[in-house]
């Protein structure tokens, strides 16, 4: 029994440490392409600093555009990763083990990318300093800044603490004792020896962060939504925006976790550890959130559309029937109903089908954020023409760079840290083993009892 178990666990360790070994040409080629895209975005940002936000298509009639949508969308991605991992940990969902590391790392890196859009969106980077030294505490923007920074700290701790035992594995297996790599890993692994007291302390720490991060994540997206709903502009001034944004973040976040898990599973041949059931369970969560998001969208539109306030009508009609209608209905179809069907139909409920559904959700939810931002910002509150937001190459380059930066950072991160949570997988395997042993014991006891009765 021990020998067989050891073989299974050895396979886990080998798979988890696979990215740390020297990479092939495909890896470096992909990393180079992603890095080039990221550099392209930095160049575009430089051009924007010189030319101003007008160079990015902004005007005083179209004052919020793609950057604000990106800020919400990328932070949402982070939210999904952290929350999925935290909830699965707290509910002791055994199937979580192979995907928690990917979810937590995605949470941290997408948050870093999302936060950077605050800087891009402000136009002049020195505005950030003014936000620090002379904050206006009645402004939701200041609270956005505070809560996102707090969430960044929590996300970093949430990624780091479960990583401690696995860093010890890297220290012991892939580095020479006493060498600089060994010392680095030993420092980061806190001198981990796997003692029962260490395990207890670590488990308590991880559990505590998992508890804290859930309300914190809810707060992050609520405050982001208040940056819109506290303005009083028709289309943004809504009481349900906070939960609406939270559900949207979870929905897009779970979809992104599916895409990240699928990508790294394929890239590092992790099929034997990340199975179809993981995708199915994640897709069930995604679809539940899909239904919830559609419900919120319907509730929001019905409430505003039924009353037909004079100021709200132009935004609603432009969204449902006017110039933005094709995009809105594309979102409803591609982000709402098609993913639902792909997961509901047994034939398409496979890895490919679920990945397609997740990709549609990520794209459609980004589009939805643009539709929340642009039409409302463009509507004139006093007489005058509608504002227009012209998409120039600058926001396109910056958005593409941001999307490329997340997988790039993940790839580089997994060059130094295990991609699978080895310790958790071992723990789950041990629990399973003890369950099996207990079941076997029970069954044999029953059999024995039966034979005695007979």
């Amino acid at each position: 029994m021990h020998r067989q178990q050891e073989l299974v666990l050895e396979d886990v360790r080998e798979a988890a440490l696979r990215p740390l070994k020297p990479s092939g040409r495909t890896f470096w080629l992909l990393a180079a392409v992603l890095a080039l895209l990221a550099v392209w975005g930095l160049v575009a940002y430089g051009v924007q600093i010189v030319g101003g936000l007008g160079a990015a298509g902004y005007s005083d009639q179209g004052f919020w555009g793609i950057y604000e949508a990106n800020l919400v969308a990328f932070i949402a991605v982070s939210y999904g990763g952290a929350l999925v991992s935290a909830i699965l940990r707290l509910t002791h969902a055994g199937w979580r083990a192979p995907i928690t590391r990917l979810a937590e790392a995605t949470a941290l890196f997408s948050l870093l990318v999302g936060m950077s859009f605050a800087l891009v969106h402000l136009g002049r980077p020195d505005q950030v300093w003014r936000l620090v030294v002379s904050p206006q505490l009645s402004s939701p923007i200041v609270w956005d800044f505070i809560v996102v920074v707090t969430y960044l700290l929590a996300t970093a701790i949430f990624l780091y603490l479960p990583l401690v035992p696995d860093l010890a594995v890297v220290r012991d297996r892939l580095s020479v004792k006493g060498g600089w790599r060994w010392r680095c890993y030993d420092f980061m692994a806190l001198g981990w020896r796997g003692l029962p007291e260490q395990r207890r302390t670590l488990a308590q720490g991880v559990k505590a962060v998992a508890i804290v991060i859930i309300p914190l994540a809810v707060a992050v997206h609520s405050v982001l939504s208040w940056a819109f709903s506290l303005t009083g502009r028709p289309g943004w001034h809504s009481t349900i925006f906070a939960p609406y944004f939270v559900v949207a973040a979870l929905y897009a976040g779970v979809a992104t976790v599916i895409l990240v898990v699928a990508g790294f599973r394929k890239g590092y041949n992790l099929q034997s550890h990340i199975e179809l059931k993981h995708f199915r369970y994640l897709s069930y969560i995604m679809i539940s959130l899909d239904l919830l998001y559609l419900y919120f969208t319907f509730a929001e539109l019905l409430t505003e559309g039924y009353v037909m306030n004079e100021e709200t009508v132009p935004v609603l009609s432009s969204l449902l029937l006017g110039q933005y209608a094709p995009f809105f209905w594309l979102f409803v179809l591609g982000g709402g109903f098609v993913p639902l069907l792909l997961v509901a139909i047994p034939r398409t409920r496979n890895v490919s089908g679920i990945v397609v559904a997740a990709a549609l959700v990520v794209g459609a939810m980004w589009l939805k954020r643009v539709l929340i931002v642009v039409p409302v910002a463009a509507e004139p509150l006093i007489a005058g023409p509608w504002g227009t937001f012209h998409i120039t190459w600058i926001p396109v380059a910056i958005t593409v760079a941001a999307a490329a930066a997340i997988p790039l950072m993940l790839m580089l991160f997994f060059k130094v840290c295990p991609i699978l949570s080895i310790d958790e997988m071992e723990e789950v395997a041990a629990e399973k083993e003890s369950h099996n042993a207990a079941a076997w014991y029970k069954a044999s006891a029953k059999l024995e009892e039966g034979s005695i009765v007979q």
Partner: protein
Amino acid sequence: MRRLMFVVLATMVALPLATATALETASADAPNAVETSLRISGASASRVKGQLVLSATLTGPDGKPVNNRPVDFYQQVELLGTRDSYLGTALTDATGTASLAYQPAQKGQQTIKARSTLDESSPAVEAVSTIQVGQVVPPIPSEPLPLAPAGQWLVYAVSAVVLGVWAVLLAILATTVLGVRAETSKPGTGTQALASAWARGLPRMGGGAE
């Protein structure tokens, strides 16, 4: 059209709250300078219910004041380039004077424009003047908002919550890091680690190295 000549006289007045003094008496040409001539008269100060009042006098080609014509007032601002920010419109009276109450939001020198037409078909004429604003009226009404104290307490409460969350997060990190490290430095940890790992029936890594 060529006969339409009139003069817009903009008079900027200063008040106790918003002390504005016309710095210069300037003359400005209308867009079609051949047809019209414009000049701004010397400013005079007056007080109208504690507010700064912008005035412009419209005079026809015959030199007589023009009654009941709208005059638009603008402030020149720098927002994504130089542009005119609309302040408001006032009708001329029998003396040809249009007056608009104005509360400047910023101190310093401001460029004010008055623009009008003699009738719908005639071209617009414009007068420009510069004023110096010494004091500004606060843009927010001075009377307290009904829920202001609650808002203030909310800020304190939320700040306390944020500080609390930071404290909790840092405490979790510190406790965990120090707790794990403390066990490492205890003597005989290597054998204990092996014993605990094997006791669980698992050859766990990170504990079996020694």
